């Protein structure tokens, strides 16, 4: 009879289904323990986990989609002009 600390192993497919939630720390504690246990033993799933975390880190990096040089000024100038014109036309 397994005690309460026994961790039931799960398949790689099951791991992949919840991989993204695991990265977001959005899994129930019992499943989290199973997943952590699996990652410690399955090299392929660990590679997938690391890669997915890296994707999240890269995409979330503030340099990833930075404004091109001069874009901020161009957007601000155009916006200022349109707001001024809007006033003149009674918008």
């Amino acid at each position, binding site marked *: 009879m397994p005690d309460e600390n026994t961790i039931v192993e799960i398949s790689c*497919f099951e791991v*992949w*289904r919840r*991989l*993204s*939630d695991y*990265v*977001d*720390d*959005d899994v129930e504690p019992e499943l989290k323990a199973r997943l952590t246990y699996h990652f410690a033993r399955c*090299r*392929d799933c660990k*590679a*997938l986990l*690391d*890669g*997915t*975390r*890296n*994707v*999240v*880190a*890269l*995409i*979330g*990096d*503030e*340099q*990833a*989609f*930075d*404004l*091109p040089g001069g*874009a*901020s000024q*161009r*957007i*601000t100038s*155009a*916006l*200022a002009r*349109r*707001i001024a014109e*809007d*006033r003149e036309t009674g*918008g």
Partner: protein
Amino acid sequence: MIDESPIRESIQGAPDEVMFASPVNAPGPDPARGPTIGETSRDVGHRSHTPHEEMPGNDLILIERILAGKRELFLELVRPYQKLVYSMAVTIVKNEHEAEDVSQEALFKAFKNLAQFRGECKFSTWIIQITLNEARHRIRKKQRTPEDSIDCGFENEEGDYVPIDLADWREIPSETLQRKELHNALETAIANLKQIYRDVLVLRDVEHLSVAETAQMLDISVASVKTRLLRARLQVRDALAPGFDGYWNTGSTTYKRVRPF
């Protein structure tokens, strides 16, 4: 059914839909979460707050003054959000010049509709919604042909996404985004996602909206957000991991795939 009007009708007609009748909980990324690989604790800290959360009161005061006639203050109001708006736009229209146009148009529409903002969601969320709709409107006008998805994994009988490759990608060097090859690969990988996956990925991982906020903005269920986010992240990983594991680091032009099965 996703509404693709430049500004959802709800902004002008039924504001509750776009401005969220009740405040959305779970504000963005979990600040308590530790850094992932390639991410420092400073990065996590940076992601945990948006400009709005730093000075929500100031935004509301500014908005009141703008609506009272100080229209020029709008530029000050939206300056901190320019980057959010642009990053949303560029991931959808996939062109820097056009993304500038979309950003400008979205911000102007925000100005014109500012009276509709009632502070029931974050100002950043409201402005992202307008940008999303504006960018989609642009794409629809251009009548682009349906997009093909990237070379991606397949689905097994249960509908699970099966990665095409299990390349080992563990380390991200700190200067990683400086590398043009990575930057281009990242942009291409995101651009090549099907729109339903890209929208969720961008709202969650670029704009750092919460799952609940993303679901409301796209008018889909929380479960759908999670499913699509999983697929999107795995597909982008599939597109980038071989480069890290193989030819980018070794200079080799060949890469032997690590097939899952």
